[in-house]
């Protein structure tokens, strides 16, 4: 084979996604069969996962591959597969081939964004993700989906403007668009990074930027809500970690900013979720709260390498747990006629498997020991605590209190399912839900295999990054 693409040879994991997207576009012209199209999609996503795991570290200036990025990419691809097995729309004539194609392209852009080491690259790939997810959000064409897509688009366009603003300031202050650049004008540099926090925080759905997320997650179809709240959120987090990790001149501000933002985000998400009677909307709020937990990782920046190593590993574990529990939970709602809390009552009687798996995912979201969610949260908080700074202790105390709070609204759904009288039945057999529940428990109990693997590969990568970047 003489497909010699020079330095681009290493990106077959992203190419297969784009190729798969185009192939399924052609297939969609011939047949809109759901099973056929999604089998092809699943094969390409799985192929991409395998290639990703086989990759090595490299650095081409504007493209950087580390173990952390590769593992996160795998985590991001998981909802893709879950989603293909559990997608469902209320509309009648759905073009499944087209959906499949857009999904694959969207995942491809996510991968591209992760590997980028240059703000321009990141921006382009990020917009690629945005545009494709705008389409997916409104794919079912029902009123609520259109409304969700429009809101997403309007606020998204606004935050894109902030990102562009931030990038231009970044260029003015450093004279380059590459990350890891030493600032010449430090005030402008700080301003640009604050703007980037707000720009990227939009997809992460952190506190003042969360507004669209609630409405969009609630309005759109369950599958797309799973994609937005799992893949797209984790991708944004990884990009943000990438950008801010390589801007050490900003660490002082970064820690303060994210301490405030994460506390506000998790407290807001949990407090409002307590009042929410609509389970899908409750999951949307919980997704905001989870963004708060996730963004505590920025408090470890600038501390010892061991702390960072643990923090990055824990973010990977959290990402795996998060995509499973959030993706699975949103997809679980497929079987429900409406998402009111009351319609969940007594479901244990009619469909025990659904009730059991859904409870596992909810407990995992709350961080119950024995589930993957606990492992992710535990190690993340542990790594933040191990910095030893006063601010981290305060933030983690609040985070733990918030976790306790969250048991209330997750537990309420479980209580309705098992202890209330009611007669609703769940439609269909939800394989995505059961798979994610099984994986959640297995990772929660046998986490050390995955932890060891991630810890060692990230450690190796850490050392080689310093070599690659010459520092």
């Amino acid at each position, binding site marked *: 084979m003489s497909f010699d693409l020079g330095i681009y040879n290493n990106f077959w994991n992203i190419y297969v996604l784009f190729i798969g997207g185009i192939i399924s576009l052609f297939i969609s012209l011939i047949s809109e069969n759901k099973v056929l199209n999604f089998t092809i999609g699943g094969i390409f996503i799985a192929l991409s996962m395998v290639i990703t795991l086989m990759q090595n570290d490299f650095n081409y200036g504007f493209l950087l591959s580390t173990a952390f990025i590769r593992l996160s990419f795998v985590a991001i691809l998981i909802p893709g597969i879950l989603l293909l097995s559990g997608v469902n729309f209320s509309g009648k004539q759905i073009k499944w081939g087209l959906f499949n194609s857009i999904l694959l392209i969207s995942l491809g852009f996510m991968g591209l964004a992760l590997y980028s080491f240059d703000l321009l690259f990141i921006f382009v790939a990020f917009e690629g993700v945005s545009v494709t997810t705008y389409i997916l959000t409104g794919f079912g064409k029902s009123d609520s989906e259109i409304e969700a897509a429009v809101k997403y688009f309007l606020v998204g366009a606004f935050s894109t403007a902030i990102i562009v603003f931030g990038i231009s300031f970044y260029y003015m202050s450093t004279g380059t668009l590459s990350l890891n650049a030493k600032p010449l004008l430090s005030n402008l540099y700080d301003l640009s990074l604050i703007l980037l926090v707000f720009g990227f925080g939009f997809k992460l759905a952190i506190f003042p930027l969360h507004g669209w997320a609630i409405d969009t997650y609630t309005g759109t179809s369950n599958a797309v809500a799973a994609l937005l709240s799992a893949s797209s959120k984790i991708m944004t987090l990884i990009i943000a970690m990438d950008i801010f990790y390589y801007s050490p001149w900003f660490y002082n501000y970064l820690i303060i900013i994210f301490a405030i933002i994460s506390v506000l985000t998790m407290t807001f998400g949990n407090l409002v*979720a307590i009042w929410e009677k609509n389970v899908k909307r409750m999951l949307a709020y919980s997704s905001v709260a989870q963004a708060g937990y996730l963004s505590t990782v920025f408090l470890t920046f600038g501390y010892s390498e061991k702390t960072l190593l643990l923090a990055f590993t824990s973010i990977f574990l959290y990402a795996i747990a998060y995509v499973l529990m959030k993706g699975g939970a949103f997809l679980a709602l497929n079987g429900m006629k409406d998402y009111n809390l009351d319609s969940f009552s007594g479901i244990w009687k009619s469909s025990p498997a659904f009730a059991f798996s859904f409870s596992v995912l909810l407990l995992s979201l709350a961080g119950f020991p024995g589930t993957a969610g606990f492992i992710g949260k535990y190690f993340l908080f*542990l790594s933040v605590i191990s910095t030893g700074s006063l601010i981290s202790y305060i933030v983690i105390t609040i985070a733990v209190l918030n976790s306790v709070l969250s048991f209330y609204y997750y537990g309420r759904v479980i209580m309705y399912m098992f202890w209330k009288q009611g007669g609703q039945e769940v439609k269909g057999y939800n394989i995505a839900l059961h798979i994610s529940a099984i994986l959640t428990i297995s990772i929660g109990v046998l986490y050390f295999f995955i932890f060891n693997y991630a*810890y060692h590969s990230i450690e190796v990568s850490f050392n080689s990054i310093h070599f690659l970047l010459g520092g």
Partner: protein
Amino acid sequence: MDLGVLMTYLIFGFPLMLTPIVIGVGYIKKNYSMYLGVIAIFFSFLFTVYIFYNYTVKGIIIQNNFNWFQGSGIYVPLGVIADNLSIIMSLMVSFVGFLIILFSVGYMAEDPRRHIFFGEMVLFTASMLGLVLSSSILMLFIFWELVGLCSYLLIGFWYYKPNAAAAAKKAFIVTRVGDVFFIAGIGAAFYYSGGQLLISGLNAIPYTWERTIVSLLLFGGAIGKSAQFPLHVWIPDAMEGPTTVSALIHAATMVTAGVYLVARTYSIFTPESLSVVLFIGVFTIILSGLLGLVVNDIKRILAYSTISQIGYMVSALGLGLGSASIALSIYQLESHAFFKALLFLSAGSILHALLNVRDVNKMGGLWKKMPVTITSMFIGALALSGFPLTAGYFSKDSIVTASYNVNLWAWVFLTIGALLTSLYTFRLFFKIALGKPRSYAAEHAHESGIIMLIPIVILAFFSLIFGVFQGGFYSFLGYHPESFSVLDLAPVTLMLIGMGISYWLYGRESDIPDKIARAMGFLYKFVKNKFYLDVIYTNVIAERAVLGLSAVSDATERRVIDGFVNTWGEIVRNAGSSLRKLQTGIARQYVIMIISGLILMLLFIRILMILGVLH
């Protein structure tokens, strides 16, 4: 991972993983879960045989530990060890467990919830195998609790019977008393040994008195699980569960766990704690032997005989002979597993035929009606009472003889124990097998199906010939006994005398037992009421002391803690209700929030810079 290590994990991991599938398959077709359950345990047995082969032929001792709390700086080991002790135990547990679960296929064939029953049986056996193979005391404790949980579920399997539900609760609570000691023991061991949780690390405990404390606390846990005085009270009530559960509890899984725990941690037992162990063991033998003489429920007689046989194992350990003690005790454990499983399964077969009539006074003359079952039961009874050349003779008499050189009093009581054993065993057997049928059900009894008879016959065979393995067994566990001694004759003689008395009293029509009971009057009533131990536990300890304490904590809980929590709950709810007004659904407003957030953040940073906090 090495194949042997993987196999060792699979011995308990395989049935553990299959448990939900066994139950789940039952929702499709109930019989599939029965077959799957049998297969699960059979595979455990095969894995164990492989490990056994590895050990004997290649001499590999498998040990594998890993840290459960990786990355957190604490060493909390979990892992497996497959040395001679755990291999011999898991061989027995998986083999006897397999036979019992095979028997259950016939016994539970008509129960509507049998898929759940088989799932729980598999989980029960799997947790016992895990307990036996654990190399870390923490993992041992986890499986220990799983065993307790399963016993609760299975004893109360027919939960709609009030007796069964109460018995399950009693078993759970009484063993929990022992577990408190066990937890305290783990804590003490962790503290004294400087953070060791591996069983092999317990030897790091430096001083004798510390070892005494730790070993006595661990023995407290063993007392609860192995039903020794004073925590034996749960076992007779536990007979309310299905008979196969009793067989599993008594032969393979639950009650042997305590003996195994003592044998496993034997190196830290000091002479002081061993004397306590010996005393408890001997006392239990006599106590339960007397109790076995006055009960009429076929299963309860067997239950008391279990307590007294476990007493022999505990006494053997209490003799303090090092590896000889372990070998004596474990050999008794295994031969007991065979004949006790045999006796329970025969009893199950009888109950199956007699529509669950359990009073021995209503049986009689069954030898002609159910020849295979009763003949097997006869072999079991011979083995239990220690008739020469059966399994019980080799295992029990060695203990009695070994005790002679250690403690004369122990020898005397252990020998008397042999008399009592044969008395209650043959009282049971003669009442069932000989004479005329004393009830309608007994007249119309008939032999059980082939699937139930196969395990019974296999077990009867092993009960007969298990003595052949005595020498090999002892040397496998590192004990080389002297040959036959005259002392062996004492228990045998007493046993034969007991058998004769039983025949004289119960083997034929007579009113002598009633006369004796009347003549003993007060004493008979005292024993019949189980020495009033249950009364003390329920009326004095539970109702006076524990209820008072729980009233206090209940009030604290309701007034103080609930009040505190509810107040905070209200505050949080109110905060939430005002915050949710931010979510208006108007996109314009979201943008305004973003902008104002950005401006506020910039202002805040600027203020911090002016204040000099940041620079």
